[in-house]
């Protein structure tokens, strides 16, 4: 049994950012455990640009963003244990990991940061009828094949779901000489960033079919095509009269990401059913004292820059936890009201905030051209703010000063749609 001060599970952007910040804060013994043979997580296969605009004020590719943190981690003496899979985590912060060099590695940590990221939703999760032939991939798996392994998953492709990875893969596969027939999205709006719609689809004349879905997969051995149909506005059920066959050899799924919390469950950490990740407080600490979480394991982010920011807060949280010896704090609840799906953190202690300002992340339930965000306590509205072009796919980030929250007993965020007063050329 090894004794460690801080163990970070996962060496992607969240884990690396947390590790770097933890070292900067003076935590001496920081161990990152990652299952792959190189750190960097999913960024290694995200060879496109769009990373780092907030953190580095420049536009980087995924590998570049990762390499900056990998180097920084090396310089700061972070220990990274690679090719190692954590298979057990307990509430008293005991970790069992496995690798082929040491066999089982047992560690007792003083503090743990969960940074395992997320996984992609699968066909089963959305129940697409039809056969189960070869040629059905999640977008991220296809991305790994193309960008890391060097293989093409298909030649003629239909993409179901307009999540960002799907859009990015539409462009990537086109650049590699494949034909992307269309991107099919069941919702009346895209789930991806606008820039990705423009630069990944419109640039290459790839049709985005909103309010459509795949209703059948054809082919016994290999995908031979899919049937797509429009869906009804009200109940989102396919309108079979609109069904048409689209020939393709591959169906990519980009239908959402799910935080990867099997280890969190093992440690009896309370999970938020809406975010799919742990319930955390002002310092990103879960319901189990001394276990923190950040990045996509907590909730799915749209920008890696936000992941880094959250991870740094988690590292600050660990530093304060190690300093206060796990002192018990009372929390006030933070909840989403109308118009919002969730707000994170889900509870806070204003006095124990590691920074003077507390950041809150939230997502809207639907796109709104103009909306007003209300922040209320039990005393009434603390603050309100007009927001433009709110989309469920783009996270809203709001900061509140400690002073604004002094002495309150609850915090509630809500989003109210307002008429758009600005004329826009359409």
């Amino acid at each position: 049994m090894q004794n460690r001060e801080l163990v970070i599970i996962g060496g992607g952007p969240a884990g690396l950012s947390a590790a770097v910040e933890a070292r900067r804060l003076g935590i001496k013994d920081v161990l990152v455990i990652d299952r792959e043979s190189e750190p960097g997580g999913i960024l290694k296969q995200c060879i496109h640009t769009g990373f780092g605009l907030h953190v580095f004020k420049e536009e980087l590719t995924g590998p570049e963003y990762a390499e900056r943190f990998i180097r920084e981690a090396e310089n700061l003496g972070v220990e990274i244990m690679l090719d190692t899979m954590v298979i057990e985590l307990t509430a008293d912060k005991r970790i069992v990991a496995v690798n082929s060099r040491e066999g089982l590695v047992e560690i007792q940590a003083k503090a743990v940061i969960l940074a395992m990221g997320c996984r992609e939703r699968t066909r089963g999760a959305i129940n697409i009828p039809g056969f189960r032939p070869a040629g059905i991939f999640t977008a991220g798996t296809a991305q790994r094949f193309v960008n890391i392994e060097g293989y093409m998953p298909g030649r003629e492709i239909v993409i179901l779901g307009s999540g960002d990875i799907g859009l990015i893969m539409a462009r990537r596969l086109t650049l590699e000489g494949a034909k992307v027939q269309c991107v099919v999205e069941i919702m009346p709006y895209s789930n991806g960033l606008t820039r990705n719609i423009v630069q990944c689809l419109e640039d290459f004349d790839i049709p985005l079919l909103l309010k459509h879905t795949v209703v059948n997969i054809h082919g016994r051995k290999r995908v031979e095509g899919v049937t797509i149909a429009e869906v009804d506005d009200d109940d989102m059920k396919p309108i079979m009269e609109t069904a048409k066959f689209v020939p393709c050899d591959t169906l990519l799924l980009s239908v959402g990401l799910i935080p990867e919390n099997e280890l969190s469950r093992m440690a009896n950490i309370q999970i938020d059913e809406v975010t799919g990740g742990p319930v955390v407080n002002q310092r990103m600490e879960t319901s189990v004292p001394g276990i923190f979480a950040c990045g996509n394991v907590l909730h799915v982010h749209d920008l890696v820059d936000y992941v880094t920011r959250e991870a740094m807060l988690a590292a600050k949280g660990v530093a304060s936890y190690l300093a206060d010896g796990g002192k018990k704090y009372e929390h006030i609840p933070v909840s989403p009201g109308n118009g919002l799906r969730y707000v994170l953190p889900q509870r806070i202690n204003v006095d124990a905030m590691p920074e003077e300002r507390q950041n809150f992340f939230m997502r809207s339930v639907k796109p709104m051209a103009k909306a007003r965000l209300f922040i209320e306590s039990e005393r009434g509205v603390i603050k309100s703010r007009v927001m433009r072009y709110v989309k469920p796919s783009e996270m809203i980030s709001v900061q509140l000063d400690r002073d604004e929250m002094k002495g309150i007993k609850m915090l509630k965020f809500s989003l109210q749609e307002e008429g758009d007063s600005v004329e826009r050329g359409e």
Partner: protein
Amino acid sequence: MVDVVIIGGGVVGCMIARELSRYQLKTVLLEKEDDVASGTSKANSAIIHAGYDAKPGTLKAKLNVRGNPLFDKICSELDVPFKRIGSLVVALNEEEIRVLEELMERGKTNGVPGLEIISREKLLEMEPNINRQARAALYAPTAGIICPYELTIALAENACQNGVEIKLNSPVLGIGVENEGVLAVRTPGETIYTRYIINAAGLFADEISRMAGAEDYRITPRKGEYLIFDRRFGGIVSRAIFPTPTKISKGILVCPTVDGNFFIGPNSNDVREKDDVAVTQQGIEEIIKGARKLVPDLPLKHVIASFAGLRAVSDTDDFVIMASKKVKGFINVGGIQSPGLSSAPAIAEMVLEILKEEGLELKEKSDYNPERPRIFKFRHLSSEEKRELIRKNPAYGRVICRCETVTEGEIIDAIRRPVGARSLDAVKRRTRAGMGRCQGGFCLPRVVEILARELGISPLEVTKSGSGSEILKGRTKEFIETGGVVDAK
């Protein structure tokens, strides 16, 4: 010249192969797909039924009740998980309670032990998530659950280990009667001469029988669709939960799997084609509706996979197990629908009796080994065992499938064992790699790489389930070099 050719590598064919491997015989098993358990045996309800269901006097009734108690020994010899969890048939009204009573009587006539009708209170205590409107249930403690393809693969491996030759990718193209007592079976690669043929071709048994000029009967494919749920919700029921049966079917059930998940299904619809395993929207809706009658609160957000299987239903409405009166040496083992899996050990016994009657001499082998060498499932080992295993073979320290904690060592072993895995699905059936909640999203590229390395082929040649189901379409750059969407090879 061999003694016996078994056509079909499903649970029945493999069970018979293993039985025959006890004796001094030359036996060949032919399977048309690239793996055993590729048809009905891979997609069914995976239940070892108690035996109250079938009409007294039928082969189904007799062989089910005879087969059920044989599973403990077989599974322990083969190192295959089998859990005797019991089953409950739930009655939601007075009329259904009367059907339960009939079922219990029928069960007693069939010789099923331990049947009992339990009260609503007892039922809700045993299964707290069941519909509160339930009135009573028939409890059958001897029912069990098993993984049907794991069993089939284990049977094939053990048969192989004891000398049976298993030929995959070997569809039977023709059967001829040579001279007295010699039959010829033609496959794409060869013609095999044999004294006996056992037709265990499942959905295709009618076609094989016709091909041989033996008895004419018809197999109709009857589709059953299923949804399988994340293991996190595996505890929703502890036993196999059936609705009260109707004349047509046992109904849509809610049932745990031996691997800790649970499933709902199957529905029951005749289809035209024998490879129509497409899941339909109506089917999914139908099984959800049906299952909700038993367990109203289903975690539908946590479905991890849907699949469909085909039952091989014969027009005689019973198993067709007999020596042909028209072709000497040809034995039909057809129409093996439910409770076929439960009956399989007894079917094998019966087939051996028939072979004896037909003149085959069964001399026991001295070196028959009923035990399959132990297979290491990393996730089930103790810490000490894990440590020891990794020390001996570091490949067991590399986790490939993180959802099911499957290691590279297990995958390599699955490929190298007798009747080894040749495709992704075959690896999946042997190790569960790719069967978890991410359905292979993470491990697919790694399993492709291991299969390619172990089989000495290019990753481009790795298939999902045999030729035609290649996973990848080319190398990157190669489409550009050859000018876009044209065949790059």
